[in-house]
């Protein structure tokens, strides 16, 4: 696997990711007041070259626990989630690298300041939710696409508008990085939303119900039927469970959307957040 998967995904979007990384929205939504000034100061340091150098250092020092792509492994958590990586200042992230995290397996790393700066830049690029970035593109055209010919709202909902079949996207910009949103659109099988698989069950009474899966374990199953009703079953109430192999999200948006349309859609989705 390419250890720089996340970055190459970004690169596919031309120069916009560089712009995005450099231009943070300073009235950062949902970030505590005392952190906002630090974030403003910190945001000026993310030189794309530093991000790239940081990615190499990351493979050297961090990947064994946090995974080559920073999304975690059996040994350590994902760096795309968590309070400090998401809400902390650059100095706080650097402090964890320098001193280690108390009560965890994260050890201190004796690296020089310039190396730590590069690592911070790379970690930021992994996890910065899209809503914290200015995404190049026309949001209003993206909105038209979402609710119009893109047919996104046939399955997805934003703030009560749209449909129930797929994941709600009201906070997609607050939850996901630009790279993750882009991947969800272009390669839905690889995205975290892939758990929204199609499912058809047959009850012991013979009723056949199709819909999308919400959760499942050895003893129960939770789904939404095609009419948008939540349906819960114990395994004993079901005669058959046929699970789709993939997410129900169409896989051909890469062909259907022009580069400009994709940018507009990303600009619109990236700005969606439920934070005040």
């Amino acid at each position, binding site marked *: 696997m390419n250890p720089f*998967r996340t970055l190459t995904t970004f690169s596919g979007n031309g120069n916009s990711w560089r712009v995005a990384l450099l231009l943070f929205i300073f009235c950062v939504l949902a970030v505590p007041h005392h952190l906002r000034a630090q974030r403003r100061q910190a945001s000026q340091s993310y030189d794309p070259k530093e991000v790239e150098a940081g990615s190499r250092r990351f493979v050297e020092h961090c990947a064994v626990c946090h*995974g080559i792509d920073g999304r975690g492994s059996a040994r350590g958590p994902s760096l795309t989630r968590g309070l400090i990586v998401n809400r902390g200042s650059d100095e706080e992230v650097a402090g964890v690298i320098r001193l*280690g995290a*108390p*009560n965890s*397996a994260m*050890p201190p790393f004796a690296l020089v300041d310039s190396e730590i700066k590069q690592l911070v830049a790379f970690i930021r690029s992994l996890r910065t939710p899209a809503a914290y970035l200015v995404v190049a593109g026309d949001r209003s055209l993206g909105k038209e696409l979402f609710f119009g010919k893109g047919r996104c709202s046939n399955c997805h909902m934003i703030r009560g508008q749209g449909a129930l079949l797929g994941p709600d996207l009201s906070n997609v910009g607050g939850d996901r990085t630009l790279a993750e949103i882009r991947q969800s659109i272009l390669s839905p099988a690889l995205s975290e939303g892939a758990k929204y698989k199609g499912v058809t069950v047959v009850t012991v009474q013979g009723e056949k119900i199709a819909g999308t899966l919400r959760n499942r*374990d050895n*003893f129960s199953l939770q789904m939404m039927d095609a009419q948008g009703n939540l349906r819960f079953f114990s395994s004993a109430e079901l005669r058959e469970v046929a699970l789709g192999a993939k997410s129900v999200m169409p896989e051909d948006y890469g062909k259907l959307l022009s580069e400009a349309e994709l940018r507009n859609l990303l600009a619109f989705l990236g700005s969606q957040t439920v934070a005040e």
Partner: protein
Amino acid sequence: MKRNAQDFRLMTVLSLLVLSAAVVFADGPISEQDLLEPDWKSWLTYSGDYSGRRHSALNQIQPGNVHKLAARWIFPVPGANRLVGTPIVAHGLMYVTSRNSVFALDARTGREVWRFSRPMLPDVIGDARNGINRGVAVFGHKVFFETHDAHLLALHASNGSLLWEAEIGDHREGYGGTMAPLIVKNKVIAGISGGDEGVRGLLDAYDVDTGKRLWRFWTIPAPGEPGSETWKGNAITHGCGATWLTGTFDPGLNTLYWPTGNPCPDFYGGDRLGDNLYTDSILALDPDTGKLKWHYQFTPHDTHDWDATEIPVLVDATFHGQPRKLLAQANRNGFFYVLDRVTGKLLLAEPFIKKLTWASRIGPDGRPQVLPDTDPTPEGKKSCPSVVGGTNWFSPSYSPSTGLFYVIAMEECSNYVSSVQGYQKGRGFEGTGASDVPGEAGQKFLRAIELHTGKLRWEYPLIGTAQSWAGTLSTAGGLIFLGDDNGYCVAVDAKSGKALWHFNTGAARLSASPMTYSVGGRQFVTLAAGTNIVTFGLME
């Protein structure tokens, strides 16, 4: 209850005179005989007995009444973040461990009677840094416990008072303590963690009374010693081969069987060409002297972090027409092995997972026939099983009545990435790592494997994301208990694999193996679930 009257304190003797002779004190002593022939009311060692079968003779809970099993008590372990240990029960007193802490509980109610706790140190590294701890050992009136900085402590069984302390290894050199010690012939056998941190692996024996070290076996030879010829390059001085999982013991053969961990750096083999003895091996040791009788290496020159730290299960059975003393292990590398434990000779090796791409088979010479192009590369190389392995340290079990070996198996692959890395004190020594294969989810299964053929008898698929680390327990009641992939404690029929009972513990990720015991004539089943100790018993 067998016991030596001379061992009793005066108070106990006086009390016995006053009370009925049938009264067993919760802090009564544990004798060598108790360990050799467990009555199964207690659960005295990590695996329940010396054989590592994790099979209890208790049979009150059976397929016919398991539907009446219900939670009896829950003990939320103070300060815990993820419990991995097996509780020890001695005469109704339960010991559970967490981050540098031991808690003694009334095993019938879960009420705490004492606790021992020591602050965590900031400069411990690796798994021990988290306070991962698999439990205590008990003997006489003492409880033995490893702190996260690789010290062995003896505590008084009645109140947790510190009796003696020994340093196994210097935590500043990467040594850590995570394992449950094992008592063998008046000795505490204690291993270490640090197997991704560049330690030189070791296994120690200490006098139970004084804490004096009686012997040490280095799992990595010093340069120039026999075995050092299997290390070409500089890695030998920080070669790992950690000993962080409790081994097993055959009193008849007077042999200790101990599994060892991966070589370091884990994923880069260029600076340690050769087999890298005695990593990823079973060591057969004389418990009196620590001398090596034989060894068997499962994964020579491992570059995938496939520690052999899975339980070596000892079984006496007729094998291919001949009565034999066997050692069975489902190894992280994906093969199920049966060895003759007298000689160390390989008798059988069969894959117990389907996603296995690194070797075609284990040859008649006992060595894997490694397939080309499976080593980690700087760009990343997909290989199977995953870095977590076909299974891992969580316990399998073996039932003598079914002849089946029960193991939680995982079907998953990883992308393995290597890079040249030199050792640096106080740091991980991995030579990079592994990550998930995008779009490929792993899946766990409870698999019942025939001891004599290595073939699958049945399997019980665990629906979920394969993030759990829970093991199994077998009982003479004909049940296999396990932790599933969604926080459920589950009982399945040992013969058929049919699920008969389940309880949602609420733990996001189970990471321990169940155990069972009996107090006041009632059988209980306990599982460390997330941050709680959860105990089940039949409804009256």
